[in-house]
C-alpha cells in the first residue's frame, strides 16, 4: 500500500543574479513522480547536487515544492505539526543536528511533549524505551550531545525521530559521516527498527554498497531527475540506465580484483543553472546519440522504470561478482559466531 505519493513534483530555487540581469532560477527537482510503500526502504541515490536531499527535505516538510502534488496515505499532505507526526528526518551531520544546549533526555522527550503523545507521568518510561530501542543505556538521557560519539548522537537523532511514531523517516545521508564500523551498526539498527515498528525509510545516500544491502527499492537521480527506479536486486543485477551502470562500476569492492569491468565517466556534473538540452546525462554518456540532445527521455511505466532513449540498445551488463577467498570467509564466519555469542550477553552500547 502506498504511504507517500509524489506526482510531477518540481522545485526551483531563485538565486540572486547580477545587479541588472534577471534572477537565476535553479531547477533542483524536475518532474519527480515517486511512491513509497508502507514499511519499505526506498533508497534515493545520486551524486552531490542531484537534488536527492532537496527531495528528502520536501518530503519532511522543510522545503516547499514549487509545483506538483504530494499525498500521504492517499490524502494531500498536511503541513507543520501534522506532517511532523507522520514524517520525520535524520540528518547527515551527527555533530550539528542536535541542539547542544539540551540534554539527550530533553531532546527525545521534546517531540512527545509537543505532540502530547504521553501523559507526563509516563514520559520517563517512554524515554527509556526509546533509548533502548536505539541501543542506548538509560543513563545517556542525562548527557549532553557533545559528550557522545558520532554513532551515539545518530542513535539519539533516530530516537528523537521515532518519538512521534512516524510512518516514514527520511535518512538524509544519515550514516555517511560515520566510521565504517559505526555505519554498519546504524544500518543494522535501522533494519531492526523497521522490523519492529514497520516504519518506512527514505534512505538518501551517495554510496551504493549500503543501499544495495538495506533497501527494497532504489531510485537513481541525476541533475534533479529520477533516471532509473526499481526493485533493488533488479536495478543492481541489470541496470537499464548508463548512469546507474557508471555508479555501480565506480563502487569499490573490498576485494582486490585483477581486472574489473570499469565503465568510467568523464567530466563532471553540468551546472544545474544551465542543464543540457534533452537528456541531461548525454554530455557524459558513452551511448548518447542525436535524439538524446533534442528530446527529454520519457519514463517508461514498468516496475523497473528508466528514462533513457538508449536503454534497449545498451551492451549486456556484466555484474561484478565477488567471491571472497575461502580463508577470509572462514575467518568472518568465526567472527560472526563469536560476535553472536557476545551479543546475547550484552546488547547495549
Amino acid at each position, binding site marked *: 500500500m502506498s504511504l507517500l505519493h509524489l506526482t510531477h513534483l518540481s522545485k526551483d530555487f531563485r538565486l540572486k543574479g547580477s545587479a541588472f540581469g534577471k534572477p537565476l532560477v535553479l531547477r533542483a527537482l524536475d518532474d519527480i513522480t515517486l511512491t513509497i510503500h508502507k514499511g519499505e526502504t526506498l533508497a534515493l541515490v545520486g551524486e552531490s547536487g542531484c537534488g536527492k536531499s532537496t527531495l528528502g*527535505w520536501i518530503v*519532511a*516538510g*522543510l522545503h516547499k515544492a514549487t509545483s506538483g502534488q504530494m499525498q500521504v496515505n492517499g490524502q494531500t499532505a498536511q503541513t*507543520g*505539526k*501534522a*506532517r*511532523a*507526526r507522520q514524517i*520525520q*528526518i535524520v*540528518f*547527515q*551531520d551527527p555533530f*550539528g*543536528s*542536535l*541542539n*547542544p*544546549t*539540551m540534554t539527550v533526555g530533553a531532546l527525545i522527550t*521534546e*517531540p512527545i511533549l*509537543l*505532540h502530547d503523545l504521553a501523559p507526563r507521568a509516563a514520559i520517563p518510561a517512554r524515554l527509556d524505551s526509546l533509548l533502548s530501542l536505539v541501543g542506548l543505556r538509560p543513563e545517556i538521557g542525562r548527557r*549532553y550531545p*557533545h*559528550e557522545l560519539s*558520532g554513532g551515539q548522537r545518530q542513535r539519539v*537523532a533516530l530516537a*528523537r*525521530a521515532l*518519538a*512521534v511514531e512516524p510512518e516514514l523517516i527520511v535518512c538524509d545521508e544519515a550514516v555517511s559521516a560515520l*566510521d565504517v564500523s559505526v555505519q554498519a551498526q546504524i544500518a543494522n539498527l535501522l533494519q531492526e527498527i523497521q522490523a519492529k515498528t514497520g516504519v518506512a525509510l527514505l534512505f538518501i545516500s551517495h554510496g551504493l554498497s549500503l543501499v544495495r544491502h538495506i533497501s527494497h527499492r532504489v531510485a537513481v537521480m541525476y541533475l534533479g531527475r529520477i533516471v532509473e527506479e526499481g526493485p533493488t536486486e533488479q536495478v543492481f543485477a541489470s541496470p537499464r540506465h548508463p548512469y546507474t551502470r557508471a555508479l555501480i562500476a565506480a563502487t569499490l569492492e573490498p576485494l582486490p580484483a585483477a581486472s574489473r569491468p570499469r565503465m568510467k565517466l568523464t567530466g563532471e556534473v553540468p551546472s544545474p543553472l544551465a542543464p543540457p538540452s534533452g537528456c541531461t546525462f548525454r554530455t557524459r554518456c558513452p551511448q548518447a546519440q542525436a535524439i538524446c540532445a533534442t528530446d527529454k527521455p520519457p519514463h517508461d511505466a514498468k516496475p523497473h522504470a528508466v528514462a533513457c532513449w538508449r536503454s534497449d540498445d545498451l551492451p549486456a551488463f556484466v555484474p561484478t561478482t565477488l567471491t571472497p577467498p575461502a580463508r577470509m570467509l572462514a575467518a568472518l564466519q568465526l567472527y560472526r559466531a563469536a560476535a553472536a555469542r557476545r551479543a546475547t550477553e550484552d546488547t547495549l552500547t
Partner: protein
Amino acid sequence: MSDTLTLPRRPRRLPPRLRRNPMAALALGLLLAIALAAIFAPLLTSFDPYETALRQRLQGPGNGHLLGTDSQGRDMLTRLLYGARTTLMIGCAGTAFGALLGGSIGLCAAFYRKLDGVLMRLVDVLLSFPSILFGLSLAAILGPGLDSLILAVGLSVMPGIARISRGAALSVMTQDYIESGRAIGLPDHRLLTRYLLANAYPPILTYTTLAFGDAILLAATLGFLGLGLQPPTAELGGIAAEGRAFLFIAPHVSTAASLLIFAIVLSFNLLGDALRDAGDRRAQ
C-alpha cells in the same frame, strides 16, 4: 572523519575562566560594590541627599562629611550614592530595553529572512544618528524625564545589539538542529528561544555588557548637558555639571562624580573584554 586531534567540545556555557582574569574579577567586584552601595544607600548614610544646608556649602573632605559637601551644602558621598543609583538605574533599564528590542530584532531578522531587509534598514537609520543628538531630540520631543532618558539610552544601544544578535543568530541558523526542531513540528517561538537564542546568546551577552558602559556614559552625558533628570534629583552627570561652576574653589565635587562614572564605565568595558576573550578562547 575526525581524528584524535579534535577533542570533544565543551558545552556552550559561559566558562569559569573569568576567574583566571584578575582585571575582570576586580572590575566585577568594583561594580558589585558600587551597585550594592547604591541600592543600600539609605542604610549607609544618615544624610538626606536633598536637604540643603547653605552654611556648610562647598566644604572639602573631612569634618563629618567623608567627601565634603556640594554647592547646596549636601553631603557629597550621599549625593554620589543616590546619583549612582539613578544613573545605574537609567543605564540598566535603558540597556535592558535596548537589548530586548535589539535582540528581538536581530533574532527575527535572522530567523525570518523576508523581514531581514526591512528590520536591518530600520536599525541602520537609527545607527546613523549620533546618540547624543538622539537623546537631545527625544528630550526635546518628550520633555526631560526618566521615561525619555531610558528610551533615548535604550534606542541608542539597540542598533549595535541588533546587528550582533543577527550575526550570531545567522551562524546558528546554518546548523542542522534548527531544521531538526522544525522537523519535529516546533512552533516558531520555541525555535527562536530554546534553539536560536539558547545557542546564539554568548556574543550577544558580551556585547550587551560592553553596551552597558556606553549606556551609563550616555546617561551621564545627557545629565551633564542638562537634558537628564532636572535638579535637585541626584544623578552623576548632573552632579558633575553642578560642580563645574566651582571647579577652582571646590574641585572635589566634579572630580568625585567624574571618577565614579569613569570607574563604572571602565569596569563594564573590562568585564565585556574578558567575556569576549573567554568566548574567543572557547571558539578555538
